[in-house]
């Protein structure tokens, strides 16, 4: 079996694993018992908590890959950092959206300037800024170097967001799982939550691998464009050379 067909097979299995994981998580979420206080609304937890935890993980991967780039100077690490940040922004956006959809029936409002919500929104916009910064720098090496600073500094927001409910008086509830001591949740609900977490982690890996694949093809296209010297739209027209002995009539 060639490397290319082996990679294609691996990708096919990863595609199936991602779809299967989402379906299994959906089954657990729909058939788990309702909560004694929140009733069926507690099912929002099985999508809200995994999406925010996967976003934390994605941003941690961005930082590790950025450090990898700074040590090795290999652009492969930078590609992983950028791809993970983009996938993380998608998951964080979904976590914010599900938080709003959960907040409306429980708190009576879509949004409030609570410590957790505010710090999460700041984290969302900072990582959007990271992606925007990358798009504004055409040179791959300069792009990697300049975005590395933000890629490392931005990660301090993860503990700030997570512990915001402990450090400040917040409307948002305190951590249920990632807290000192045992998780404060009944085991059938915890089971469904952990299944959701594993499923969204598998989906994250799938999205990351696909995003890296796309970035690599784009980089190859850019390299071929540069090598073939094809005039591009927006390129400046060069003035004719008048010093080479041409005669004007």
């Amino acid at each position, binding site marked *: 079996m060639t490397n290319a067909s082996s990679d294609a097979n691996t990708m096919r299995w990863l595609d199936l694993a991602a779809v299967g994981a989402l379906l299994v998580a959906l089954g657990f*979420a729909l058939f788990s018992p309702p909560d004694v206080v929140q009733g069926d609304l507690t099912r929002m937890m099985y999508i809200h908590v995994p999406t925010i935890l996967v976003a934390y993980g994605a941003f941690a991967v961005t930082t590790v890959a950025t450090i990898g780039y700074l040590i090795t100077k290999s652009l492969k690490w930078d590609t992983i950092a950028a791809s993970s940040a983009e996938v993380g922004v998608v998951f964080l956006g979904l976590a914010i959206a599900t938080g709003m*959809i959960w907040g409306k029936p429980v708190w009576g409002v879509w949004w409030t300037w609570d410590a957790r919500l505010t710090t999460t929104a700041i984290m969302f916009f900072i990582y959007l800024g990271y992606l925007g910064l990358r798009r504004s720098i055409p040179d791959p090496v300069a792009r990697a170097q300049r975005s590395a600073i933000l890629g490392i500094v931005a990660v301090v927001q993860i503990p700030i967001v997570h512990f915001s409910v402990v450090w400040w008086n917040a409307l948002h509830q305190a951590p249920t799982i990632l807290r000192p001591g045992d998780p404060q949740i009944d085991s059938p609900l915890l089971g469904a939550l952990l299944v959701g977490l594993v499923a969204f982690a598998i989906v994250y890996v799938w999205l990351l691998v696909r995003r890296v694949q796309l970035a690599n093809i784009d980089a190859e296209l850019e390299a071929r464009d540069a090598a073939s010297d094809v005039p591009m739209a927006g390129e400046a027209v060069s003035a004719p050379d008048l010093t080479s002995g041409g005669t004007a009539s």
Partner: protein
Amino acid sequence: MSDWGWVTFGYVVVYGGVVAYGASLLWRIKVARRKLKARG
């Protein structure tokens, strides 16, 4: 809206969002591969 209505809304947003983003990546990979092939 009922509790199940809110839950359905949330799941449609998350599952729809993940599927839409995943499908957009697959589509962009397909288009980029086609460009690469066309350039030899």
